């Protein structure tokens, strides 16, 4: 038997320790390499110049062909939200946790977004005036018809998928009026030197502490969008590329033929909205109004009261139950919507249960507070929501 000295043992145990160090180093290599390389330095640009570049890149449609992986992370802190894992297909699942999507972008008319699941995949493939939604879990291909006159426009039948481009376009709309805007040129996103626009709301009644948008230093394509809530260091919502390549994706990505044996359905864009439980969107479409401006804008829309909502939610969970005779709006839709809605129904019920009862000069209702959004469901049938403190909602509720 070989005899081993104490020193020999120490040297031997150094090997696994070194292995752990190497692995830990490799795991954190991204940040370390970035630190060694130093911050990327891009030519300085003012916020105005950068916004203009971004808008130009977005509007002219000459976004370069690209592909990459997008990760969406949300920790909105919605009370009572059942934590769903693995169920990537449900929009409710996107309100909590982290989700990954692969994006291929050829040009404005050719886009493919894939949401991988365990042994399943959901794909949205847009090619010119053709759009397909493929859900491997249901072996179902849905041909989406674009409404007349909208050919070429980007459809968004998947509310769950927000590319950085879309998120940015929405943000840029009313940016500078209500916000302090600053720009840094030393950010690195998806390993690309990037500009970062930081918008800080001027109104301190907003729950948003800042919004950060990272734009690629070369192409000005938005690479990451983050919303920070007041009082937390981690973003409450984030969507961004973790890897990106600016080269034309293979054309096969944009062709889709329903495989043999798959169920093929047809759907016209816009029909989706009817499926929202409680018929909020359907009924309220004509009467949605906003109160206030900028970051403290409050959306007011008519809504059934909490009990009706709850009833509809439970009905959506059991679609086979006999339709009740309650004539409240949206009932029929909720009843027939079926499986996909059961998750949303549960969600509504759980969220309603956790809402806090409040009252004041404006009346009474239920208040739902999250890190980023506050919602008030009044007993007289209105839903007020905004990224604001509750006082702003009460004030808006007072102004009938």
């Amino acid at each position, binding site marked *: 038997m*070989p005899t081993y000295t104490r020193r*020999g043992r120490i040297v031997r145990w150094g090997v696994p320790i070194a*292995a752990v160090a190497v692995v830990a180093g490799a795991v954190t290599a991204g940040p370390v390499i970035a630190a060694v390389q130093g911050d990327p330095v891009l030519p300085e640009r003012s916020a105005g110049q950068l916004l203009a570049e971004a808008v130009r890149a977005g509007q002219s449609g000459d976004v370069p062909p690209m592909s990459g992986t997008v990760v969406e992370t949300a920790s909105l802190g919605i009370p009572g939200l059942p934590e769903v894992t693995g169920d990537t297909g449900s929009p409710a699942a996107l309100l909590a946790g982290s989700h990954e999507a692969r994006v291929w972008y050829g040009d404005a008319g050719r886009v493919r977004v894939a949401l991988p699941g365990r042994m399943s995949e959901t794909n949205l493939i847009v090619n010119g005036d053709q759009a397909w939604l493929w859900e*491997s879990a249901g072996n179902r291909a849905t041909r989406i018809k674009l409404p007349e006159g909208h050919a070429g426009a980007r459809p968004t039948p998947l509310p769950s998928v927000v590319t950085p481009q879309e998120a940015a376009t929405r943000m840029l709309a009313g940016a500078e009026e209500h916000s302090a805007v600053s720009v840094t040129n030393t950010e690195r996103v998806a390993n690309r030197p990037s500009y970062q626009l930081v918008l800080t709301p001027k109104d301190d009644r907003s729950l948003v502490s800042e919004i950060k948008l990272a734009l690629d230093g070369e192409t000005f394509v938005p690479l990451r969008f983050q919303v920070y809530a007041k009082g937390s260091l981690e973003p409450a919502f984030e969507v961004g590329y973790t890897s990106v390549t600016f080269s034309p994706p293979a054309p096969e990505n944009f062709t*889709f033929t329903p*495989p043999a*044996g798959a169920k093929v359905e047809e759907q016209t864009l816009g029909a989706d909205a009817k499926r929202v439980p409680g018929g909020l969107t359907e009924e309220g479409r004509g009467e949605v109004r906003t109160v206030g401006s900028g970051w403290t804008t409050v959306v007011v829309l008519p809504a059934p009261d909490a009990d009706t909502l709850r009833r509809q939610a439970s009905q959506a969970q059991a679609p086979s139950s006999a339709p009740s005779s309650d004539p409240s709006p949206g009932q029929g839709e909720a009843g027939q919507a079926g499986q996909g809605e059961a998750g949303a129904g549960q969600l509504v019920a759980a969220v309603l249960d956790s809402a806090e009862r409040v009252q004041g000069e404006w009346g009474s209702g239920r208040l739902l507070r999250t890190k980023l959004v506050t919602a008030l469901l009044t007993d007289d049938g209105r839903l007020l929501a905004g990224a604001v403190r509750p006082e702003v909602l009460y004030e808006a509720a007072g102004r009938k």
Partner: protein
Amino acid sequence: MSTVEARAGAEIVTGGPGGPAGPGAARAAVPRDAGRRVRGNTWRLLGSEVGLTFRRPRNLVMLAVLALVPAVIGVVLRTVSAGGAEGDAGAIIGAVAGNGMLLAFVSLFVLVPLLLPVAVAVVAGDAIAGEASLGTLRYLLAAPAGRTRLLAVKYVNAVVFGLAATAVVAASALVTGFALFPIGPVTLLSGSTIPVAEGMLRVLIAVAYVGAGMAALSALALAVSTLTEAPIGAIAGTVVFVILTQVLSTIPQLAVIEPYLLTSYLPRFDGALRDPVATEEMTRGLLAFAAHIAVCGSFAWARFHSRDVTS
């Protein structure tokens, strides 16, 4: 234990049981072509290890069970008409009825969470602890530079078994699938269709990926095996680890640790069923496997070298 004697005999040829202590002393004493002889003997030792592993009734029974599962799934899918399958994987299980080749993926999906790891843990966890409990470890070590070589041979043996077990699952699934279901172009998870030949290639990719995952698990089991003289402890420890990590990864609050768990990378073989093949995710998985092999392997090496072999 005639087999042990045979192996010990192979050792004696090289250095002799009474060889001087320490690799340095051994180098001085043995002739110049000793290096080649040691290498030749390493191969012989590996050969005898692999032979032992695949002759051992216990291991053969495990391989048979692994081969049986795809056949059972196939027969069930054939006799019970598809439908009522729920969940993400439900559709792919149903799709086997339309294309037998998919049975290979379904079988891996079913076996990768538990049964395959158990089979690998039995072989790799037994590697050192089993010899120690039988009292045969010291005979195996009666050779210069014995410990590193013995550990390497034991590890490669476990890797070979892991790969063989994965291949057995795929082969059995393909045979069952070809026998019971129509074979034709394969519909991938992404909805596109590929010819049969490419489908076979995808099966090979999945087998290689799962085999690599089993190699990582073998390293872990080997490390546990050097800690104990009771093989059942090493096997159970590894299996408990496999189950525990999978339970932990279902807890949403612990989502942060998921990227560091070995078992969260094992089911990523489904990347082979995407179009294009999800190379990015699978490469990440392979890197995670490599990291586990490096850490667990070096731990096993350090532990095995510093431990007193008394049995």
